[in-house]
């Protein structure tokens, strides 16, 4: 009631003011009249009335205060005062705001990337009702994984869909289905096969045609229909509305287009879907394992689940309800138990993705947080310096009765004002620039990296984050200087102020030096990390992986998607190899199911005779000539023969390390090894170790099998030539077209495989390099500021020293020694901290030697050089001081 009356009063302030004036005037007039009526003279009556009434302004003020929010008014006053003070020192304000803007900007930017990648809700109506369901198994597990282990099988999906009591609908889809769309120019597309309630549960309706109906999913292969994305419809079909009802070729099967998805909808994965087909058409679209029955298999993980929760049902209830179903399924698998992970659905929401994004995101947020910390330390230092200059003002305010809290509040308001200005400027900068930066990075990812679609526009999370950060920043850099400036022992401060002969930097010297040390330490960590990464990149360029990369071209074909049988695939590969071998300049041709350092790894269990437990080993299937082409020497035994390759024979070739590990001290050739569930294989050769699986990892158990008929559909062609890449590439493309115009071929240099390894390091190196530079800039401004402030405070002392016979050199030495002391301590702390950081980084990113001497010596020397320069410049000013002028100073 009171509150409401005050709020109302707030909006009719002017009216209130007028009423109050009138009310008082009326009172005075009445009293004056009464006095006159009693015979007092007009003038006399007026003065007497005024005198009796007392201080009318004060009375009105008390009345006004009755109607107002005292806290709010005080804040407003503090703000106005703060704004005035900041306005009076434009140089200081600009420096502080800039530092904070850079710090907040980089934090907000990184956070908005993280938000876009993994925090934002799905771009669908009422997205907060939709949850993702994932499962984790414990105990005895026999399971095939197609994609990720946390996905579901079709029978499991049916169980959850039909027996839950919490969802209005539960949908399932297989993400990242890659198919070849036939036509005049065949192209590869990413899409999804989905349950037929997909569009209904998501609440997304096709803008043209229809979504799926239950009949589309009634049985395996029931209805070959497809919904296309708006993008695909526009780019490939010129937005032709007559496309509905026509058919398109997907992996050589005809699908009828029944609908076009609305613009901006690309499914629920960060890689946008180009099409959606019913789950029951899965067999026609799976290029990897054609003919396998996914629908009936209860032990294969391949489906992601999203459910729309009924109104009023909590996440806890969802967990409990689905947990019952999970328990029932576990009952049929003795020794196994399942835990479900249920979250409000976001991009990258599966447990493995979540861990990855939050680990990487966390590391980067810490790094940018450190930059913000430097910026804070910098501004805190500026404030400290200014507080000394304002000591007189503060002392006067304290002595005329202002409480310490009032002054601290005033100073904090000022620093919050700086933070707010910086925060707004920085956030605007981030919103404007980070989208462009991210697009640039995404566009320059290595070949074969799927294109991500990230919505980076700020939402309430980003705004809340930057606002929270801004307020925290304002308090962090404002509190210490404010408390320091108003500390109770004023007398000490005044003494320090007038002293200066003690050789100390004056009031707040310790705090200021600590802040400088902190900045240098943080800056050191960032720069050394950047240095380590760049060294890593350099060594990745110059490293010898143990095989030949130059002049090798690789080509892969989508024969699986094209529905090639084993025989047709073999015939295709054979003709291809013959055709390419005849190209000018080509001197070797071979094939492998994976090429060295590609992002394609196969692993399975092998058994030694007499052992019951299998050993997990990475393997590759290769043709004869593979080792020769890549320059990997066969140290003992022999290569596969052409006959062995054709027949998927029982031979095997192992690496030296494998031989040493499995048969230490014995001749490996002639030994027996068995792939679990397969025949015995005899070792026919031992090849030299090479970094074919992971860059930098030479010693690894790795075996080679001859490529048999089963692998033909996904063999990758390797071509060594002396004639240059372009000629070979166009030769391969022509040969493909001649054999089958519908086949999509992907031709790249073998060296391009390195990009997969270098790119993460390159991105992190660029990021930490940029942050390091920013940090260096801020830190050197900090050092410069502190030294130049110290010099101006000690002009008097320097004057005395010089009068007493010290020369410029002595003064310089003194100043530099004192300036560099905190820098050295900070640098030492930074180097120690970085030793710890590099241990962590070396586990995540390729190419970091955790004790790289160049980074660990070079960076500190460089940083100390910069710090020395930053203190030398202002210190030089001191040595040019004329003693006479200096003594008269102040």
């Amino acid at each position: 009631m009171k509150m409401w009356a005050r709020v109302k009063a707030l909006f009719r302030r002017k009216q209130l003011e007028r009423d109050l004036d009138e009310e008082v005037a009326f009172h005075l007039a009445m009293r004056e009249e009464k006095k006159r009526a009693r015979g007092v003279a007009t003038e006399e009556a007026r003065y007497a009335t005024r005198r009796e009434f007392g201080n009318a302004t004060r009375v009105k003020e008390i009345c006004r205060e009755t109607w107002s929010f005292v806290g709010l008014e005080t804040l407003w006053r503090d703000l106005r005062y703060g704004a005035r003070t900041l306005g009076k020192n434009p140089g200081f304000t600009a420096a502080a705001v800039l530092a904070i803007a850079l710090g907040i900007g980089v934090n907000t930017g990184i956070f908005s990337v993280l938000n876009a990648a993994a925090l934002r809700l799905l771009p669908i109506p009422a997205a907060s009702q939709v949850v993702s369901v994932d499962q984790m198994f414990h105990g005895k597990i026999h399971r095939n994984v197609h994609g990720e282990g946390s996905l579901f099988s079709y029978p499991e999906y049916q169980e959850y869909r039909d027996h839950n009591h919490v969802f209005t609908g539960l949908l399932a889809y297989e993400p990242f289905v890659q198919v070849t769309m036939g036509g005049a120019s065949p192209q590869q597309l990413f899409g999804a096969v989905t349950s037929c309630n997909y569009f209904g549960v998501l609440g997304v309706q096709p803008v043209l045609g229809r979504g799926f109906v239950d009949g589309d999913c009634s049985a395996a292969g029931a209805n070959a229909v497809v919904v296309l994305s708006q993008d695909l419809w526009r780019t490939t079909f010129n937005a032709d509305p007559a496309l509905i009802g026509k058919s398109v070729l997907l992996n050589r099967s005809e699908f009828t287009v029944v609908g076009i998805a609305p613009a901006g909808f690309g499914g629920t994965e960060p890689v946008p879907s180009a099409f959606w087909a019913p789950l029951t058409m899965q067999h026609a679209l799976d290029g990897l394992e054609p003919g396998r029955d996914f629908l009936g298999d209860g032990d294969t993980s391949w489906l992601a689940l999203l459910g729309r929760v009924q109104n009023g049902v909590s996440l806890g209830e969802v967990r409990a309800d689905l947990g019952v179903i999970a328990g029932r399924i576990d009952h049929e698998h003795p020794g196994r138990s399942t835990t479900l992970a249920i979250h409000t659905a976001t991009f990258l929401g599966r447990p493995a993705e979540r861990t990855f994004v939050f680990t990487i995101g966390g590391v980067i947020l810490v790094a940018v947080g450190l930059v913000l910390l430097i910026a804070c330390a910098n501004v805190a230092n500026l404030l400290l310096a200014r507080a000394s200059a304002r000591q007189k003002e503060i002392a006067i305010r304290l002595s005329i009765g202002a409480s310490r809290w009032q002054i601290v509040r005033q100073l904090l308001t000022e620093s919050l004002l700086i933070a707010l200005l910086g925060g707004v400027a920085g956030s605007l900068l981030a919103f404007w620039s980070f989208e462009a930066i991210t697009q640039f990075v995404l566009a320059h990812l290595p070949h074969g990296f799927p294109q991500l679609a990230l919505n980076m526009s700020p939402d309430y999370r980003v705004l809340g984050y930057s606002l929270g950060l801004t307020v925290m920043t304002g308090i962090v850099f404002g509190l210490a200087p404010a408390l320091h400036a108003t500390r109770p022992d004023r007398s000490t401060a005044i003494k320090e102020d007038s002293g200066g002969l003690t050789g100390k930097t004056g009031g707040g010297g310790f705090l200021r030096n600590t802040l400088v040390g902190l900045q240098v330490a943080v800056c050191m960590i960032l720069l050394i990390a950047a240095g380590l990464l760049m060294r890593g990149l350099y060594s990745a360029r110059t490293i010898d992986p143990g095989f030949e990369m130059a002049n090798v071209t690789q080509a892969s074909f989508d024969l699986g998607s094209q529905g090639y049988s084993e025989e047709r695939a073999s015939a295709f590969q054979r003709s291809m190899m013959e055709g390419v071998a005849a190209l000018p300049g080509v001197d070797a041709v071979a094939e492998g199911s994976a090429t060295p350092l590609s992002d394609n790894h196969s692993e399975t269990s092998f058994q030694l005779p007499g052992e019951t437990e299998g050993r997990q080993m990475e393997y590759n299937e290769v043709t004869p000539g593979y080792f020769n082409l890549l320059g990997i020497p066969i140290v003992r035994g022999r290569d596969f023969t052409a006959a062995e390759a054709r027949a998927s024979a029982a031979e095997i070739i192992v690496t030296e390390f494998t031989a040493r590990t499995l048969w230490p001290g014995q001749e490996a050739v002639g030994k027996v090894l068995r792939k679990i569930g397969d025949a015995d294989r005899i070792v026919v050769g031992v090849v030299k170790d090479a970094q074919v699986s992971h860059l930098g990892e030479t010693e690894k158990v790795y075996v080679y099998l001859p490529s048999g008929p089963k692998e033909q559909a996904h063999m990758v062609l390797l071509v060594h030539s002396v004639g240059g890449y372009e000629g070979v590439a166009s030769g391969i493309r022509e040969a493909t077209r001649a054999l089958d115009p519908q086949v999509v071929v992907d031709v790249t240099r073998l060296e391009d495989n390195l990009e997969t390894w270098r790119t993460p390091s390159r991105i992190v190196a660029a990021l930490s390099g940029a942050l390091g530079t920013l940090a260096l800039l801020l830190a050197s401004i900090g050092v410069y500021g502190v030294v130049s402030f110290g010099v101006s405070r000690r002009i008097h002392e320097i004057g005395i020293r010089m009068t007493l016979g010290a020369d410029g050199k002595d003064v310089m030495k003194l100043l530099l020694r004192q300036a560099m002391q905190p820098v050295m301590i900070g640098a030492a702390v930074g180097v120690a901290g970085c030793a710890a950081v590099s241990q962590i980084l070396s586990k995540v990113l390729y190419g970091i030697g955790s004790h790289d001497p160049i980074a660990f010596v070079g960076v500190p020397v460089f940083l100390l050089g910069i710090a020395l320069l930053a203190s030398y410049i202002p210190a030089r000013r001191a040595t040019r001081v004329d003693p006479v002028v200096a003594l008269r100073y102040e």
Partner: protein
Amino acid sequence: MGERMEKQGDLVQGTLDMLVLKALARGAKHGYAVAEWIHESSNDVLQVEEGALYPALHRLELRGLLSAEWGSSENNRRAKFYALTAAGRKELAQEAEYWRRMSGAIARVMQTA
């Protein structure tokens, strides 16, 4: 510096509020009339200070004990008239009862020899 003054005012405040409420018990009055009424009713003993009167009126209005309306005074000038609200009447009754008990008690104490 403001704090001490307010504490002193508090002592007067309770009484002043009650007197103001009482002054308005028979009908709406403007501020000047309230002051005059108190002055006259006390046989010129109580002199209400304007510096305290108007803040009191505004405070009571804010608490919803008084309602205010602009009207015409007896000499035809625009004046702000205050009147008791229902809550104001209740408050007055409580204050009067409290005052009766307190003043009686104080009088008895003072009469004790």
